[in-house]
C-alpha cells in the first residue's frame, strides 16, 4: 500500500474580500491535476467504509479510481449510476458528517475530499460531454401515470427514476421555477442556478412534464389527481413554512423570515434590483438568528447586498452548529461576526415600526436533550441590547399544511410531517407516497433524493402489481 498522504488538496476559492461583494461562486473547483492528486490519496480500502456514509451509496472508490486513471467518462458513468445530481451533491452535501466522516482517512483527520471530487466529475461532464446529459434510451411506455407534487430534489429524483422505467410522469410545482430549495433557498454563490437548471432540463428530457404555477391543494387536490387518471402520487413538497419565535416585536419592519429574504434575493433576484422588480431591504447592521445552513446563507447574502456588519446569533456554541463546516468557515473568513450562546428576547422598534435593536439573553449549555445536543439555558439577568436595523430569522421550517389539509386520509404527525414508511415512502393513504423534508422535517438534499429513489422503486413495484 502506498504511503498515506494526509495533505488534502485545498479547494481554490475566491478571495474573501472580493467574494463578499459578489454573487459568483465562492469555490472555484479543482483543476484536472488537482483532482488527480486528491484522488491519488484514496487508498482504495477493501472495506469501502466511505460508501456506508453516503445515503445513496455512491461507488466512491470506483469513481475515484477512474479519476486517478484519467478515465473521466468512466468516472461520470460510475458516479451517475447512483447519483443523478452529482453537481449539486458535490457542492451541498454535508460531507463531514456523511461520506467523508466514514472515510478511513478521517481518523487521521484528512479524509479524501470526496465531495470536491464528485463536483469535479460533474463539472467535467458538463464542460466536456455536453450531450452526456441527454436522454438515455427509454423503455416502452407502461401506459401508467404518476403525479409528483413538488420539484425539489425528492420530486425530481422520483420523477427521473419513474420516467426511466417507462411511466408517464407529471410534476406539479407551486412556484414559477422548478428545483425547490435548490432554486429559491440556496444562493447562487454556493450553488449556481445554471447547474440546477441543467438538472431540471435533464429530467424534462426524459419526458417528464413540469407544470409550474400549480399549487396542489388549491388548483387541484390529491384525490382529484387520483380520480383523473393518475395511478399514483408522490408528495415531495418539502418543509417550506417558516417558524417564528413568537417574541415581542417580531412583526416589525425589517424583520424577515429566512425564506422571505432568500426568496427575494435568490428566486426573485433582488440583488439585481431595480433591473429586476422585486426589492429587498439592505440593512447596515444585520442580525441573523440561527446556526444552520439557512442562517449562513442568509448572513452571506446580507453581506453581499452591502451590509456593514452581519451577526450570526446562535443560542448554542460553535460545536453544535448544524451548518456545513465548509460554509461556516467561509462565513467566518468573509467577516460574519458570530455571537454564540446568545438568544433574542424581544425586538425594539422605532415610531415608524422599524426594528432598531434587539434585546438578547446570554445562554449556557446544560445537559444533552433528545437531539443529543446540549440544551441551551437562559442566564437570568444577562440581558443586553444589540443595535440592528435588519433581522433575518432562520429558526427552522415545517411542512406547509396546504396539501395535508386538503387530503383526507393522509396522516400527519404533531409537527405536521407526513407519516410514511421509511423504506418505501408509502403514506397511509392509498396510492400515495411521500419523501424528503415533508416526511423528515428540514434535512438534506441527498436524503431527499434517497427518499425519492426508494419511493420510485416502490411505486414501480406497486404499479406492476
Amino acid at each position: 500500500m502506498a504511503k498515506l498522504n494526509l495533505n488534502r488538496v485545498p479547494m481554490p476559492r475566491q478571495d474573501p474580500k472580493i467574494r463578499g461583494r459578489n454573487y459568483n461562486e465562492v469555490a472555484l473547483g479543482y483543476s484536472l491535476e488537482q483532482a488527480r492528486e486528491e484522488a491519488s490519496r484514496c487508498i482504495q480500502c477493501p472495506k469501502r467504509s466511505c460508501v456506508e456514509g453516503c445515503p445513496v451509496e455512491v461507488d466512491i472508490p470506483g469513481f475515484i479510481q477512474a479519476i486517478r486513471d484519467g478515465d473521466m467518462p468512466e468516472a461520470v458513468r460510475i458516479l451517475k449510476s447512483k447519483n443523478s445530481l452529482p453537481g449539486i451533491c458535490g457542492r451541498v452535501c454535508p460531507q463531514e458528517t456523511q461520506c467523508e466522516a466514514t472515510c478511513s482517512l478521517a481518523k487521521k483527520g484528512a479524509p479524501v475530499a470526496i465531495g470536491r471530487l464528485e463536483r469535479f466529475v460533474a463539472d467535467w461532464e458538463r464542460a466536456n460531454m455536453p450531450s452526456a446529459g441527454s436522454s438515455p434510451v427509454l423503455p416502452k411506455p407502461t401506459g401508467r401515470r404518476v403525479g409528483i407534487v413538488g420539484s425539489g430534489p425528492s420530486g425530481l429524483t422520483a420523477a427521473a427514476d419513474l420516467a426511466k422505467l417507462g411511466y408517464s410522469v407529471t410534476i406539479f410545482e407551486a412556484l414559477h421555477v422548478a428545483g425547490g430549495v435548490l432554486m429559491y433557498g440556496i444562493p447562487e454563490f454556493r450553488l449556481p442556478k445554471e447547474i440546477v437548471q441543467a438538472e431540471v432540463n435533464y429530467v424534462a428530457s426524459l419526458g417528464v412534464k413540469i407544470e409550474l404555477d400549480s399549487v396542489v391543494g388549491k388548483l387541484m387536490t390529491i384525490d382529484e389527481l387520483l380520480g383523473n387518471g393518475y395511478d399514483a402520487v408522490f408528495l415531495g413538497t418539502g418543509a417550506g413554512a417558516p417558524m417564528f419565535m413568537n417574541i415581542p416585536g417580531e412583526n416589525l419592519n425589517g424583520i424577515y423570515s429566512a425564506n422571505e429574504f432568500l426568496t427575494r434575493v435568490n428566486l426573485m433576484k433582488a440583488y439585481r434590483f431595480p433591473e429586476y422588480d422585486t426589492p429587498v431591504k439592505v440593512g447596515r447592521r444585520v442580525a441573523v438568528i440561527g446556526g444552520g445552513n439557512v442562517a449562513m446563507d442568509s448572513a452571506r447574502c446580507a453581506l453581499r447586498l452591502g451590509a456593514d456588519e452581519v451577526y450570526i446569533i446562535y443560542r448554542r456554541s460553535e460545536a453544535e452548529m448544524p451548518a456545513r463546516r465548509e460554509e461556516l468557515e467561509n462565513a467566518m473568513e468573509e467577516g460574519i461576526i458570530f455571537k454564540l450562546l446568545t438568544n433574542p428576547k424581544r425586538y425594539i422598534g422605532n415610531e415608524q415600526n422599524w426594528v432598531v435593536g434587539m434585546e438578547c439573553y446570554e445562554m449556557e449549555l446544560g445537559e444533552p436533550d433528545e437531539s443529543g445536543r446540549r440544551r441551551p439555558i437562559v442566564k437570568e439577568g444577562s440581558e443586553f441590547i444589540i443595535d440592528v436595523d435588519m433581522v433575518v430569522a432562520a429558526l427552522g421550517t415545517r411542512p406547509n399544511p396546504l396539501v395535508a389539509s386538503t387530503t383526507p386520509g393522509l396522516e400527519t404527525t404533531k409537527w405536521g410531517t407526513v407519516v410514511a414508511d421509511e423504506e418505501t415512502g408509502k403514506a397511509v393513504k392509498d396510492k400515495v407516497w411521500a419523501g424528503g423534508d415533508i416526511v423528515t422535517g428540514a434535512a438534506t438534499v441527498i436524503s431527499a433524493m434517497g427518499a425519492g429513489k426508494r419511493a420510485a422503486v416502490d411505486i414501480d413495484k406497486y404499479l406492476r402489481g
Partner: protein
Amino acid sequence: MYKILLKEDLVPGIHLFKVAAPNVAKKACPGQFVVIRIDERGERIPLTIADWDEEEGSVTIVFMEVGTTTRRLAWLGTGDFITDFVGPLGLPTHIDKFGTVVCVAGGFAVATIVPIARAMRREGNKVISIMGARNKSLIFWEERLRSVSDQLIATTDDGSYARKGLVTEPLKELLENGEKVARVIAIGPSIMMKFCAKTTEPFGVKTIVSLNPIMVDGTGMCGCCRVSVGGVTKFACVDGPDFDGHQVDWDLLFARQRIYLDEEKRSLEQWQGQSGSCS
C-alpha cells in the same frame, strides 16, 4: 404563459383583464386571489379574482395603477401574455345565509365585491351594496353591482356624482336606522376598511375585511404577509385574506405596507426612465 383574452380600460388608471387560465377558472371562489408575474424580471403581485368563466376558461382581474408592476401591466393589451398566473389562492369568502348583508366597496374593489354580493344574494341574503369613488370619472360597474344587490348606494368624495361623502356615512345610517344587518363585508383601500370596521364596531355587527399586505409567494412559504388579528400573527395569504375587521391591528398593516416605499419610488423612476412614459 397566460393569454390576455380581453383588456378593458374601465376608468382612467383602472383596467380589466380577462385571462385564459382554465384550471384556475374551474376552482375559483369569491374572495380568492391570484399571484401574477408579468415576465422574467417581474415582481410577484397578488390581485383579487373579480370574475371567472369556467366554460370559457377565463379569469377576470381588475387592477389599479399604483406602482411599477401595475403600470407595466397596464401597458399590455388584448392578445398579450402574462408569464405567471397562480391561483386560486387564499380562503374563499365565507358565504352563508346570514340575513341582511352589507357589501361596501371602495375604488377598484367594486370589481372584487361583485362576485361576493352575487354569491351572498344567491344564498338568500338581502344584499345592500355601498360603492364609493373619489369622483364621477372613477365610477364603474354601478349597474353590474346593482344587478346583484337588493339596494345600491353610490357615493363620491367630492359629490360630483350620486351622494357626496365617504362610504362610512351611508353605512352608519343603515345601522342607526335599525336595519338588522347581520354582516358587513368591506373591501377597498386599507384606510377605508379600517374606518368601516370602526363604524360598525359600536353596533357589534361582524365586519369582514380583505387585507392586502405585501406578498411574495401567496402560499404560506415566506411570512411576508404577516398580519396581527386578535393579537395572533396570521399569514394573510393562507389564513385570509378575509379577517374580522374588529380584531385587525391596523397600524401594523399600514406600517408593513410601507416597507418598500423608497425602493418602489426608485423602481418606478427607473422604469419610467426606460419606457419614456410621460406620466
